């Protein structure tokens, strides 16, 4: 259904806004990471919503599989950096 594709694009647009709000309004490093995860989720939803309108099947699936694989890597690398920061500074707030 084309309606679902358009509705999905609207939802992903709202989620991007929420994620950007989370990124810009906090100094807590973990919340910044969580907000970037919201943007990642919304971008994956956007890819599928747009692809459902233009009739693509395989490319969005392959792209998103690689994206979530890299997201897993990114979360662990970011978390290692956060732990290092916490050990050195003793807090999770950034200037």
């Amino acid at each position: 259904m084309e309606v679902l594709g358009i509705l999905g694009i609207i939802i992903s647009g709202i989620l991007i806004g929420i994620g950007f709000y989370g990124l810009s309004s906090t100094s807590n490093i973990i919340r910044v990471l969580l907000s970037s995860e919201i943007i990642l989720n919304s971008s994956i939803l956007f890819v599928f919503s747009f692809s459902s309108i233009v009739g693509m099947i395989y490319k969005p699936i392959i792209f998103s599989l690689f994206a979530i694989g890299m997201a897993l890597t990114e979360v662990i690398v970011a978390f290692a950096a956060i732990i290092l920061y916490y050990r050195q500074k003793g807090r999770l707030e950034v200037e």
Partner: protein
Amino acid sequence: MFPPTSELVQLILFTFFGIMAIAFAIYIVRAKNVFYGAVSLAFLGVSIAALIALEAPLAYGIYSVFHILLYVGATVTFLAVSLVMFKDLEVKIPKGSTGILAGGAVSVLFLITVYISLSQVTVISLKPINLTILADNILETYWFPLIILIIALLTTLIEAISLARRD
């Protein structure tokens, strides 16, 4: 004219999961304790997987399973469990409307850009997925990114071991 019953149910479920996704996303950025925010991210992931599956069950259903298994099952669980290591997880709730205005502006700009792009595309209906073609695509066309992904995941394994060590 009303849509058929199955499409109506699909539309209602899609709207429900869409509202849930937005609610969980708002909770993530507004929760006082980031641990609960990370747990909420799991529910956001499940809602996104449901939305993707509902868009085209026969074509994208397989991906939503991977989204729950890989993203919710591995990434978010790792994030939520690892947060237990920290002591001060309480966060000040931001005040002021600058962030809300910035987020709203990004949303509006994004939707305007997409609206302009959508007016130039032709709508094509989706066919059911063929897993053989999907596997062939991954192994023959996208073999190099696959190798990079495998190496990246292996390095995270080493990193997880070094994270588990105290010093």
